[in-house]
């Protein structure tokens, strides 16, 4: 699923409605999904931050400048400096890799384990299905933050442990979605036909069931990605994630808390970045879900 897909889909819809060339330019300008484009731009920028942070900032995220503490935002320091004279913008840019990799790992855990469970349950049906889905009910019955905290207390604090803890809370959702998709596709006529023409179970699963359930799983993954960033920053803020010198976003906000009266930018800026990324992930997920609904 790329940007081109989403836009081309929209383009065809418009051409059928209006024919005139002069009006189509105006209508493209009017109907262009600015919000969606902005969402992709935000995600792309943050991805670039993780890959080439040096391109965006020259300052060291961990080394402060003596005498340059708690400076307000200026041309030299876009978002000001913190209590140790470290450039805040640099810390946010370099922190992207911690927050994003944590979220990707968390969603990865949820995706692999959850879809695995759902796929298995939906495929075998019967008693095993019943047991797996009851287990999923149990996971759902424990509020997500408490489940994360139970796993954190078990594994200890740290970036990877926080990611696993957040991922575990995503398992139930993925399992339910995947199972319902498998059951839905299984009952379709073309799947019956595939079985009838001699397809083995594994082959039908791979050729028909998986590709057909992919779109909704991708849309759900995007939502979960935003959710995971929120959760990881929450755990980081509570002090259960990455240890202090790390510029993780939640931790940045926690550190800025002591300077609320004097240096508002220390808490405001990283929070706005988190909001922007989560909003973008949700917006993109919505657009994937919509194209799916239209084609189906």
């Amino acid at each position, binding site marked *: 699923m790329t940007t081109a897909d989403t836009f081309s889909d929209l383009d065809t819809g418009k051409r059928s409605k209006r024919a005139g060339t002069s009006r189509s330019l105006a209508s493209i300008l009017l109907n262009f999904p600015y919000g969606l484009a902005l969402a992709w731009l935000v995600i792309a920028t943050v991805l670039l931050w993780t890959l080439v942070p040096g391109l965006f900032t020259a300052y060291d995220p961990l080394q402060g400048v003596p005498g340059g503490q708690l400076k307000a935002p200026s041309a030299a320091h876009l978002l000001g400096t913190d209590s140790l004279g470290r450039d805040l913008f640099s810390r946010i840019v370099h922190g992207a890799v911690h927050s994003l990799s944590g979220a990707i790992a968390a969603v990865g855990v949820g995706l692999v384990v959850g879809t695995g469970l759902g796929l298995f349950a939906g495929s075998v049906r019967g008693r095993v299905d019943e047991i797996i889905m009851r287990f999923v009910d*149990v996971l759902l*019955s424990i509020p997500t933050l*408490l489940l994360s905290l139970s796993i954190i*207390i078990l594994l200890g604090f740290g970036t990877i442990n926080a990611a696993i803890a957040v991922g575990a809370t995503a398992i139930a959702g993925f399992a339910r979605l995947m199972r319902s998709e498998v059951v839905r596709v299984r009952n379709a006529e073309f799947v019956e036909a595939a079985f009838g023409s001699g397809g083995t179970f594994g082959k039908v699963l791979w050729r028909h069931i998986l590709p057909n359930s992919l779109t909704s799983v991708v849309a759900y993954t995007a939502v979960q990605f935003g959710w995971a960033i929120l959760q990881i920053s*929450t755990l980081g803020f509570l002090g259960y994630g990455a240890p202090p010198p790390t510029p993780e976003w939640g931790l940045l*906000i926690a550190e800025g808390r002591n300077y609320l009266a004097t240096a508002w930018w220390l808490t405001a800026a990283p929070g706005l970045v988190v909001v922007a990324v989560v909003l973008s992930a949700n917006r993109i997920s919505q657009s994937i879900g919509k194209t799916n609904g239209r084609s189906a």
Partner: protein
Amino acid sequence: MSRYVVGRIGQALLVLWAAFTLSFILLQAMPGDAVLIKFLNPEFGLSADQIREIRAAYAIDSGLLVQYANTFANFLQGDFGYSMQAGVPVSAQLATNLPPTLKLAGLGFLAATILAVFIAFLSTMAPFAWLKNLIQSLPSLFISVPVFWLAIMLIQIFSFRLKLVSVINPGPWESVVLPVATLAVPIAAPLAQILIRNIDEIRTRPFVPVARAKGASEIGILWRHVARNAILPVLTIAGVLFGELLAGAVVTETVFGLNGIGGLTEKAVSNQDLSVLQAVVVISAAAFVTINLAVDLAYPLLDPRLRTRNGATA
């Protein structure tokens, strides 16, 4: 009908028992040891023998199955063990911390409901498409805001900039308003979303044009015909909202330094106080299961359409 009720209750009890077992496995398989963390502290100056006695008193070294059976029996009787860190029974801690959280959660939920209804009605009444879109995108904005950051921003804006709410020696009203506002935002978001979706869906039903043709005003239709049908399905997300409230309480109470179940949970994790965390997990799972059970059982009673259908089959 009664068979369905019994089956549904049995299923709820099964899930609850499994949740207890899962929390037991998670929290007893832990490598760290709360007794050691507390009592190995040189300040206590305890000898190895004394530590062994303490361990025996807490029955930590007996077999896992024995511990499991003991803990289960104790939980059934409302005895959640001792908090290692505070040295008092967990049930006593819960009793002192529950009222402030109930107050916070109750007020937060009330504020969230008002906010959500307000957003949903505004979005249906909005005269322009762009305004409607703007209002409808509010819930997704609310969902994307980290609760802890929102709390800090509210303190920043209302306490430090506008100086409306004093942080030092706050009055009874001042100490509550910001935490309640913080908690209301993440709860209002899913509520508003489901309300907007329901209202939009119900407005396309045939009885709406009929009411309009009979001369009902738009507001009258919205209030008397649409809202009544749109509010009921909100019950189905009651369990999810409960989880959100609890998670919100943990973060809100931590940021505002309030005493309550949330603050208790946060301290339990920091101190690896297992019995406290397990009690909170099991009790909240019980609350979640009970809420969902109550919604499932009450739904046919509240929705007359379901009642007649059930009456026909029973």
